[in-house]
């Protein structure tokens, strides 16, 4: 065992972790730990862009942060906290300007200003972009600034569990993947920026590493999960591998066709058509599939051929490359076969009611980015708002932490006591896994992914979800007997993937549990047995925790309203 001491430890080196790390490193002794090298983080995959009401285009000159906030709240089907959504949109232009000054190579207009493209659910062309590789451009920019300011990194360290005394976080225990050593990070302030958990689904656009390690660790430490029933299914993922095909492809004019060569979106969103919000387009495609209007009963076509080689090469080069390498199709010549797939987790670690943004009920623990539920995306996130969320709140939460100062620490004896306890638990867990004779982790993971995909997907109902919940509870039992070789801990991905599964099972169970509870349809959560929105009973956040007896318990938290009137959502 090794001990590292810091003022602040940040877990995760995607956009959220890097931005808050930059903010805090000038004042506090700060470390960023990450299970992969920073530039391998999932933010790298983001394609389409980042929203800000800059009004750089003539068509966008009437845009404003308030319109942006309204689009966000409406897209969220009104279950977002309006004050937080407003704050994010007000801070959006500053965030894009900050990135530009840090050197981000944004795509430009002829007049030299940052270009903006139309995106789903947005009133104006508001999405700033760097080709179709915006995540790459932004993540590398922040990493470069981290090199500039000498931010301290611990690369390839895996978060196992948080350490706490009473209701205060005091650090965390991690596995140094390279040496195989258990390392305790002692810090009065811990920030989780560990990203989403799409890999609880079999078909996901997410990186293989998106397994909710931070969400699981917080949940085991008693911090609830919020709004996990809201799972975004991206309408256009490449048929087969489910690699993302950006919404920007439709923003640039891409059209959707079924096997009868109909632009079927006119049945579902006659005004917005292909640029309706993601939940609506995903349901439209799956409806076409169910009604026999899909190719090979599995996919529809995203046609870019009419855009021409020049637009595709300049604005969507990454999409062309992905289509060619992973599907053998050149979108200049042929349409791209696409199907919906899990894409984004609107829910996540619950935040404190009326606390500071990102604050949790566990003192000293702060959360941001996709692992958190702040909540700006409500029941459905708009494209271009996730990259925005990471950088806006990285900056703002960082500033707030500096303003509030570090929480009081505990005596060394107390800290040591808590750390030894956690260390013993982990050692015990590893030796149990070594000695167990049950299933392999992959069997449990595959079963979890399949049942989530088939029973807690785009269309939901009571019966299917109850089957899923029963299955997941059985898998939790199976997991207690899981066997994996833990004898050599050095670069033992069999071991780290089992640790990931430990968190994913909890998250899958909570997602299903909350989705069963929410007897209405709202945003991405669509139930065939309750197919309308029910504001009277469900205009609230779900908060799920594990009770003392091991059963899940659900409470609700009010949604913060008051800026925009709650209305029917039409596109």
């Amino acid at each position, binding site marked *: 065992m090794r001990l590292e001491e810091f003022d602040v430890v940040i877990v995760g080196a995607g956009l959220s972790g890097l931005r808050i790390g930059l903010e805090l490193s000038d004042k506090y002794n700060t470390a960023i730990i990450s299970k*992969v*090298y920073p*530039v*391998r*983080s*999932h933010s*790298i*995959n983001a394609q389409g862009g980042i929203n800000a009401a*800059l009004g750089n285009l003539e068509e966008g000159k009437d845009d404003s942060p308030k319109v942006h906030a309204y689009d966000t709240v409406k897209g969220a089907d009104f279950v977002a906290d309006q004050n937080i959504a407003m704050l994010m949109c007000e801070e959006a*232009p*500053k965030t894009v*300007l*900050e990135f*530009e*000054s*840090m*050197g981000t*190579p*944004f*795509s*430009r*207009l*002829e*007049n*030299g*200003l*940052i270009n903006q493209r139309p995106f789903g659910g947005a009133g104006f062309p508001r999405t700033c972009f*760097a*080709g179709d*590789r915006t995540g*790459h451009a932004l993540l*590398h920019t922040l990493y*470069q*600034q981290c*090199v*500039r300011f000498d931010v301290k990194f611990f690369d390839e360290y895996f978060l196992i569990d948080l350490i706490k005394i009473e209701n205060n976080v005091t650090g965390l225990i991690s596995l140094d993947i*390279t040496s195989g050593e258990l390392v305790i990070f002692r810090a009065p302030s811990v920030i989780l920026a560990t990203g989403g958990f799409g890999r609880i689904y079999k078909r996901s656009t997410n*990186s*293989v*590493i998106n397994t909710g390690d931070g969400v699981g660790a917080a949940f085991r430490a008693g911090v609830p999960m919020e709004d996990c029933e809201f799972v975004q299914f991206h309408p256009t993922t490449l048929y*087969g*591998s489910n*690699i*993302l095909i950006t919404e920007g492809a439709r923003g640039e004019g891409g059209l959707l066709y079924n096997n009868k060569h109909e632009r079927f979106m006119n049945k579902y969103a006659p005004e917005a058509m292909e640029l309706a919000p993601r939940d609506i387009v995903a349901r439209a495609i799956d409806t076409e599939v169910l009604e026999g209007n899909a190719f090979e009963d599995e996919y529809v076509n995203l046609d870019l051929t009419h855009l021409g080689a020049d637009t595709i090469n*300049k604005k969507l080069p*990454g999409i062309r*490359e*992905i289509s060619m*390498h*992973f599907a053998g199709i050149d979108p200049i010549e042929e349409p791209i076969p696409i199907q919906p797939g899990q894409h984004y987790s609107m829910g996540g670690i619950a935040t404190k009611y009326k606390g500071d943004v990102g604050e949790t009920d566990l003192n000293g623990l702060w959360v941001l980015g996709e692992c958190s539920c702040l909540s700006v995306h409500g029941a459905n996130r708009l494209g271009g708002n996730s990259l925005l969320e990471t950088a806006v709140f990285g900056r703002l939460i960082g500033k707030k932490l500096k303003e509030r100062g570090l929480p009081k620490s505990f005596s060394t004896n107390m800290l040591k006591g808590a750390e030894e306890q956690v260390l013993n638990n982990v050692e015990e867990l590893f030796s149990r896994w070594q000695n167990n004779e049950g299933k*392999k982790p*992959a069997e449990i993971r595959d079963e979890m992914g399949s049942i989530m995909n088939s029973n807690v997907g785009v269309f939901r109902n009571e019966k299917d979800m109850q089957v899923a919940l029963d299955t997941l509870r059985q898998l939790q039992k199976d997991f207690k007997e899981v066997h*994996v*070789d833990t004898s*050599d801990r*050095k*670069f*033992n*991905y069999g071991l780290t*993937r089992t640790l990931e599964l430990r968190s994913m099972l909890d998250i899958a169970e909570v997602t299903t549990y909350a989705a069963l509870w929410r007897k209405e349809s709202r945003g991405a959560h669509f139930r065939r047995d309750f197919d309308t929105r029910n504001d009277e009973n469900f205009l609230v956040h779900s908060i799920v925790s594990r009770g003392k007896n091991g059963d899940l318990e659900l409470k609700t938290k009010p949604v913060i309203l008051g800026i925009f009137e709650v209305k029917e959502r039409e596109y």
Partner: protein
Amino acid sequence: MEKQKFLIYRNPGDGSVRYDRFEVPIEKGMDVLDALFYIQDHLDSTLAFRYACRGAVCGSCGMTINKVPMLACKTQISSVNEIIQPIEKFIRSKNIDFIYGDVPAWDREHEILIEPAPNMRVIKDLVVDLEKFWNHFREIEPFFTREWNYKQPESKQSPEQMERIERYVYCILCGLCWACPVSNKNPNYLGPAQLAKASRFVYDSRIQHEKQNSIVSRVMKEDGVPACERYFICNQVCPKNVMPGTAINQELRKDWSKHE
């Protein structure tokens, strides 16, 4: 079900090297990374390799496949030889061979040979030590030094000026270009990816003159641009078409050789 045989380099990290054989059931569209996951999940959980995005953008899964440096996720099993053939031909024409250990009777017709990324120290199996790679990256000080700005308008750049550097921007820092023979023999050589990244900054129309100057001064030292021997292996093996060799020779060397 159709099966594919694999012959995989193993090294527990103690210096002992062996090659293990595995058979993997093949599904349509499967790539080498999928096969490695199958092996780790079902046949040997201790097989070590890096991964993250599985979509050729994160740069984690660089390794040597049938003697050619490749990203595992980008290499389809059904067409592996077709994909690597032109690169392999080029590597052979330069008389370069990547040797990791004594390969036991490799049946090239039926077996896919997997070995670590070239010219880096192996830590375990297919995981290599990238510390030097990142150190050399930091060495060129790859960042803007402008003050952070929060007021409109942003600094301007024409579409053409942005396109000028685009190729270098999208380097994914996978490290495959360190297959360069110079990286093998000269541990101080900054490396193709690092020099391409330098081009990304040097030719950005927004860079401040002083900063441009300092990057140029660094990369024009002996262990930078002048160390390149024009093998152009980097241009061939780069999975993102960054063309570091072109950046080094057609730009940096040409434009800055007389730089003081």
